[in-house]
């Protein structure tokens, strides 16, 4: 039988683990995609997938069906990712060095199979993006990733970040401004 998300969530809430398994199988890839975009690290993303579903399972009683299960789960994943980013930032501040994960991500900014021209441009972009990303606050970076790459609405981003809507909007704007300035030498993205 093909369960809808809400029916599976309701069954899972009653203690049916198979129903929860259906939800895990259905949403794992999108949770991974979000976690990777937020953390820029594959292993962290894998850990976050586990953490997200564990947390969701423990909090199933709080899912009231007013929003789609995917949206609710997405919020949990984003919050888990944000906590990790904050913890990592804290650690980075202690060490006052850039993490290798950031470098890894910057190395992956280019398309998987780029043309030589694109490769050259991506190299330029990556080298310019690096100091800009270091300047973004965690709020700016998260808001930008959620809005630009994940296509999430401002209301939802504000909910994830625990800030007012205007603050979320402003974070997206500030991130865009900083990144555009950083990429100024690459004419197409100059402010």
């Amino acid at each position, binding site marked *: 039988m093909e369960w809808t998300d809400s029916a599976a969530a309701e069954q899972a809430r009653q203690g049916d683990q198979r129903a929860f*398994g259906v939800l895990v*199988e259905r949403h794992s890839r999108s949770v991974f995609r979000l976690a990777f975009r937020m953390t820029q690290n594959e292993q962290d993303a894998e850990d976050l997938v586990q953490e997200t579903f564990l947390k969701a399972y*423990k909090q199933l009683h709080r899912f009231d069906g007013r929003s789609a299960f995917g949206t609710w789960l997405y919020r949990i994943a984003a919050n888990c990712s944000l906590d990790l980013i904050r913890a990592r930032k804290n650690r980075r501040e202690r060490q006052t060095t850039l993490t290798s994960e950031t470098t890894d991500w910057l190395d992956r900014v280019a*398309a998987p199979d780029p043309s030589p021209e694109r490769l050259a441009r991506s190299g330029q972009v*990556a080298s310019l993006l690096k100091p800009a990303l270091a300047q973004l606050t965690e709020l700016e970076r998260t808001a930008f990733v959620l809005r630009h790459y994940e296509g999430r609405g401002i209301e939802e981003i504000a909910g994830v*970040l*625990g800030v007012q809507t205007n603050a979320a*909007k402003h974070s997206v704007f500030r991130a865009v401004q900083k990144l555009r300035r950083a990429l100024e030498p690459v004419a*197409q993205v100059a402010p």
Partner: protein
Amino acid sequence: MTHLDEEQLTLAYYGEVDAECMRHLEECGECRLRHERIKTALDNFPDFPVPERNDAYGREVWNRLLPQLAAKPRRSWLNWWTMTPVLASLIAIAFFAGMLAQRNRQIPGISAEARERVLLMAMSDHLERSEILLVELAHAVPGENELKMERALARSLVTENRLLRETARSAGDEPRAALLDDLERVLVAVANGPAGENPADLDALKARIQSNDLLFKVRVMSANTLQEGRKL
């Protein structure tokens, strides 16, 4: 209408401006030109490649997850585990805060680092439970819940908060003391407030929680404190 500013033009790209702004954008050539530049820039932002996961990935995640799941999900968040740590924390905080207040006093077998670690872990635990309370209140629906459990938890957290705030202040940790100050005002309001059946009362409470981004600050401080504690 005056011309749109950079922020409005940027947010218009994401469709996050009101209808009036969009109308202006359609009618004003100057703004449209500036918006085009922003659109081109954002369209050309580098892609964000994500490692591929195949169709079997969900099944793999489930197989890894299954052994970690308890037999049945918890039904109520405000049960024993949110209430009992308060007493344990209070004892630990009172003990170690007392030692902190008498910095010169040496207790054999307990290092300064160990004392600080206990305090940080107690602080993190306190902030985490406060965060749960704030989240529940932020999502509370008038008339559905009398907030009895929430108020009981808030009452117990007030005492703990007071002790932690004084400890932080005497240790010269002003950022934590200031946050605990803000938190305490909300906890006291919840603990002594009305039943929460009145929508206006609940709205006032929610507004108070939202003011100064208290929930966000608590969340950040909780994560940072936990990290610091683990480092010691």
